[in-house]
């Protein structure tokens, strides 16, 4: 049996879990390949015009998978992984949208509800509904969850050591201890905030991490921070952002701004992202209070890469000049 996982959205965070989980069950996992113009066009063709780019790209990947010989396309419903926190409504309605708006998906849609209290999403009860269709027993699912959780834990550890998600994915492929050490760059440090599916999708972000590093800039992202570090400041808010990943980004931002661990912050966001419209405002306020420069890069389905290159370079130049004149102190 073959299961396709769309290489979009939370694949960039949870595929270490899903891959081990399915492989443990003896199921072959295939991905839909990287995002290119064709994928985007496919997605745009069947999505509601106003919806955000990541969802359009996701739909494109689903269509690509449906054109292959996979038995199922795995589209879990991401509802909640933390008490009182949810995902964006579009994630919560993802299988519904796929079922009713993607033509010919029919019985090939494999879905389950992720509704749990732990980040490693290894609650076996959630996966029991898959047992029949995969032809496995509940006991096998329990074992598979354990395998998934192990791999996911390893992934998180690789990230916290200072790797980006894509580097951690690479490092997962080699045995423990043999992975390439994380990139260390002395010099400017920029906090790069954005959802994993924006920052690590090479079409969306046009490899912004690579570009920054080429300019001799160290990059700090939210997945390099531990859970304690992420919740240190947001915990004290009267009402926190109730979207899990937005809250993580805000926590990372508060830490960066308030502990002054970076020279500047770049927020990568997709056109039409709802949670980011609020998150962005909070970051703006925070940047003003701390005096650390902040830039928003908003990306949609027809972005040329020159504007990104220009803006990122200009931002870095500005930071370098600022550091020369003030010695790094804020003005």
């Amino acid at each position, binding site marked *: 049996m073959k299961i396709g996982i769309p290489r979009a959205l939370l694949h960039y965070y949870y595929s270490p879990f899903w891959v081990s989980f399915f492989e443990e069950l003896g199921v072959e996992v295939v991905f839909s390949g990287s995002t290119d113009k064709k994928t985007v066009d496919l997605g745009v063709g069947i999505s509601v015009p106003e919806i955000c780019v990541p969802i359009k790209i996701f739909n494109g990947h689903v269509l690509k998978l449906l054109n292959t010989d996979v038995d199922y396309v795995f589209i879990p419903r991401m509802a909640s992984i933390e008490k009182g*926190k949810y995902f964006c409504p579009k994630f919560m309605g993802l299988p*519904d949208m796929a079922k009713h708006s993607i033509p010919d998906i029919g019985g090939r849609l494999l879905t389950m509800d992720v509704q749990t209290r732990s980040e490693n999403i290894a609650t076996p009860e959630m996966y029991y509904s898959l047992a029949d269709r995969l032809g496995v027993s509940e006991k096998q699912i329990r074992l598979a969850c354990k395998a998934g959780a192990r791999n996911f834990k390893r992934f998180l550890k690789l990230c916290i050591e200072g790797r980006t998600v894509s580097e951690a994915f690479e490092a997962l492929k080699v045995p423990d201890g043999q992975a390439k050490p994380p990139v260390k760059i002395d010099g400017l440090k920029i906090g790069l905030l954005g959802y994993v599916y924006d920052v690590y999708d090479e079409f969306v972000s046009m490899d912004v991490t690579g570009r920054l590093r080429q300019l001799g800039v160290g990059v700090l992202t939210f997945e390099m921070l531990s859970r304690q570090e992420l919740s240190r400041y947001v915990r004290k808010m009267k009402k926190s952002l109730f979207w899990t990943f937005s809250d993580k980004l805000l926590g990372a931002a508060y830490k960066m701004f308030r502990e002054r661990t970076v020279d500047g912050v770049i927020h990568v966001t997709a056109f039409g992202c709802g949670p980011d419209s609020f998150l962005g405002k909070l970051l703006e306020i925070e940047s003003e209070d701390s005096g650390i420069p902040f830039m928003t890069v908003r990306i949609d389905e027809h972005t040329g890469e020159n504007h990104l290159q220009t803006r990122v370079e200009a931002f870095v130049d500005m930071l370098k000049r600022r550091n020369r004149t003030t010695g790094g102190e804020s003005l």
Partner: protein
Amino acid sequence: MKYSFPYLGNVMVYKKIFEMFDYEVVVPPRPTQKTIDLGTKYSPEFACFPYKMLMGNYIEACERGAQIIVSSGGHGPCRAGFYGELHERTLRQMGFDVELIIFDSIRRDLWGDLSKFFRLKGKNSFRKIISATRIVLRMLKDLDYFDKKIHTMMPYEVVKGSFVKAFEEITKNYEKCWTMKETVKAFEMGEELLRSIEIEKVEERDRIRIGVVGEIFVVIESSINMDIENTLCSFGCEAERSQYLGEWVDHNFFGKGREKEILKMGEDYIKIIIGGHAKQNVGHIVDYSKRGFDGVVHLMPFACLPELVSQSVIPKISETYGIPVLTLAIDEQTGKANNMTRIEAFVDLIRNSKRRASA
């Protein structure tokens, strides 16, 4: 202290309850282009439209001296749950000395809500509060009743505008009420008034019924939804909304009403509650088609998160149940002509296909 509230639906009722508690009230002006411009100026560019409208609303209320604004909140996953936090920060940044009291879900923060309740209660006795609440609830439901009833009769009025005028008069009657007795009287007067208005007799097969579903804010507030029900009536259709304030209160505070049933009907299309009223809306569309409505207008604020999901599944419902649905996105661009043309064309299509079916 001067109290204020968002402008949503029939604000006379909110004014009433504050006045019954002997508080000074600032009624925000009915949203206009200026309100929307103000709100847009001080909101994040991609914030949803109700956020911007409320922002403008609050600014105008603050300019008129409001010191405390009372509103309802939420706890996600829709953005509305975070409105209060950002509104308050923005208003403070603008230099207004104002406090927002936001009632979130009781289940989430019982103590917080209770303490807010006691703050609002002030020196008023429980007895007074209960009786005031009962009167205001009655008013709310009566007004909903008239609102609903009027829009089943308006398309057939002989003298244009008589029902709009009648509703204004009914609201005015209620505004004068302070006791239950007076409220009951106002209801009878309202019924009497409606009976006195002359309407044409129309055959059942010539009637067109349109349901209006969508995000609660743009469905209820007529100043920003092109006065959708009256517009539909002026095109000769009966109109019914999926949301009425009284029903909202009934469901959220007393767990009554048809909402459970509606949610069940939506389950095939959106399995869980994903915030806002997305699941209810798809349920309402199914409900309207089962009740024999001829079409549905679906209103959503531009880029509303939950409604984008319902918009994605609507074509399938429309196909399965054979009910036409027109989705209109509403934002700060207030040009009406485009939407009017679309609504008119939609109604024409329905009328034609109905004629052909009965011929």
